[in-house]
Structure formats: C-alpha cells, structure tokens
C-alpha cells in the first residue's frame, strides 16, 4: 500500500521530469534559432569576400556588413543564452552546484576583441580571433547546455565540429595568403549551421504526458 508521502513524491517527481523535458524541448528549438541566426551572420560576414573590389567601392559598405553580422550574432546569442540562463538560475536554486557564466563572458569577450583591434595589426588580430573563437564558441555552447540541463543533440555536434574546422582552415588560409579559402569555408559553415538550425527547430519532440485533465 502506497503511503501519502510516496504518493506526493511520485506525483512531484513526475511533474518535475515533465517540466524539464519541456524545457529541453524549448531550449533545443531556441538553439535551432541560434544556429539559423549565426548562419545568416556568417553569410553577411563572407559576402564581401565574394567580390572585394565591389564591396570596397564605398567606405561604408564593408563596415555595414560586418556590423550587421555582429548585431545578428548578439541578438540571437542574447535570446538563447538569456533563456538558458533562466533555466540555469532555477537549477542553481533547486539543484545547487550549477551556475551560468557563459552569457556574461560572451559580452566581456566582445569588448576584449574590439579593444585588441587597437593594439594588434589586421593579420595578427584575425589569427588571434579565429584561435579564440575556435576554443570559446564550442566551450560556450556546451557549457550553456550542460548548466541548463539540456541534452546535447546531433545538430550541436555537427555545428561545433564544422565551426572548429572552419576556424582552422581560416588560420591556414590567412597564413598562406589565400583569403578566398576563408570565404568558401564560412559559406559552407553557414549552410551547415542553417541546416542544423532547421533540424533543431523541426526535430524537437515533446509530447505532453498530462493526458487526462484532472479538473
């Protein structure tokens, strides 16, 4: 015979599991939007590389593309990380031991990179940038997912691996002076991230276990 405590406990555990399954579904869809947003940002960033003389005809064109790219990245990253941060804050209270710093660190990173531009030349800046991105972005994604209790799905692995490979190709391309390689690499990454985003959005599954309305 089940005691009253066990009855409450069983119901409570079932509700908590359902709530976290739902959060996992929501965060997976949010990360889908994140990959799509970054794919758009990558395209904006690499389009000038397709025809440099055309895009440098006027002084304002190139900065416009780079600034738009950065704004798109910040918008979509802010949306996803703020959502993940809410889950993480809850987990920190409910299951102490977890904390989310990636969201804050990302904006600190942006400030540092912009400041570094003043001290390093174009060449060094981009080498440093790709090394930093190749380490930081995968860490930020996995760290966010882990601290918000989200499962790491296949599209995340594909996105992270292609990103790291593209950073490595970019460093090699800059050192060899073959800048067109960067354009090709980041267009490929943008396409793959777009597909990852679509997978995250449409493959997310959640079926409510609350079948009977107990009203």
């Amino acid at each position, binding site marked *: 015979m089940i005691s*009253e*405590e*066990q009855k*409450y*406990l069983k*119901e*409570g*555990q079932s*509700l*908590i599991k*359902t*709530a976290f399954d*739902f*959060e996992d579904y*929501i965060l997976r869809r949010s990360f889908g939007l994140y990959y799509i947003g970054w794919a758009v940002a990558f395209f904006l960033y690499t389009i000038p590389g397709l025809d440099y003389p055309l895009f440098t005809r006027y002084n304002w064109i190139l900065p416009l593309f780079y600034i738009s790219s950065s704004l798109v990245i910040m918008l979509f990253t802010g949306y996803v990380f703020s*959502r993940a941060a*809410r*889950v993480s804050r*809850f987990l920190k*209270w*409910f299951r102490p031991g977890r904390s989310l710093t990636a969201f804050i660190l990302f904006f600190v990173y942006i400030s540092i990179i912009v400041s570094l531009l003043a001290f390093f030349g174009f060449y060094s800046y981009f080498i440093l940038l790709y090394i930093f991105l190749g380490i930081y972005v995968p860490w930020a994604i996995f760290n966010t997912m882990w601290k918000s209790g989200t499962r790491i799905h296949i599209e995340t692995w594909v996105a992270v691996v292609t990103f790291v490979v593209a950073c490595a190709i970019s460093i090699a391309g800059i050192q060899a002076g073959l800048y067109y390689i960067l354009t090709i690499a980041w267009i490929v990454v943008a396409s793959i991230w777009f597909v990852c985003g679509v997978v995250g959005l449409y493959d997310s599954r*959640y*079926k*409510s*276990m*609350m*079948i009977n*309305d*107990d*009203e």
Partner: protein
Amino acid sequence: MTSDSDSLKELSSIFNDRALKSSQRLLILICLSINRKLGFTELSKLTGLAKGSLGNHLLKLTLSGYIIVTEHSFFSSKRITIKITEKGILTIRKYLLAINELETTEKGEITSTTSADSDFN
C-alpha cells in the same frame, strides 16, 4: 521522520488551496517558476490541453493570485502571455522544496536499509 511530517504539513497546507489541487496547474506553475512568463501556445503544448480547458485552469490560477494573464496585439493577431506572481513563485518553491525533502528522506531510508542488509550479510 520529523522532516517527513514537516514536508507533509507543508504539502497539506499548499493543497488547502483548491486552485492547486490539480497536476496540470502545478505543472504550469513549475514551468512558470523556471521561465517567469510563457505564452498560451507554449502552455498548451506543455499540458496537452485544448484551448478551453487550459483557459479554465488559467482562470483558477488567476483568481487565486498565482498568475497574471495579459493580452496584447502582435501585428494582426492577439498574443496571450502568462506571468507568475510573487505569491505563485513562493508557493511553488515551497512545494518543490517539500518534494525535495521527501526525496532526500526516501533516499536516506533506502541507504540505511541497504546498509542494514549489508551488515546482516
């Protein structure tokens, strides 16, 4: 045993409020305590309830002061947002802490039973 009865007392006092005597409403409040606010469509997905049934649950929670429902226009369509109140957050946190306490007690009882069995063997 003492913490078990404290948790039970806490849960009994929570369930004195008829508005909380429903798994769906508890689930809605748990998710709102994580996200602070959610849309009607998201809650419908969460609970699997039809529009009318979900509306009834939200009405009960609103009348008891656990949530606030706001409606706003988004281009040509209406969006309904449900936000949890401070009372809702405090109540659901008490509920979750009581459940946590019961879970800890049960784990403790299983561990002591296992140790007793090992000693016996």
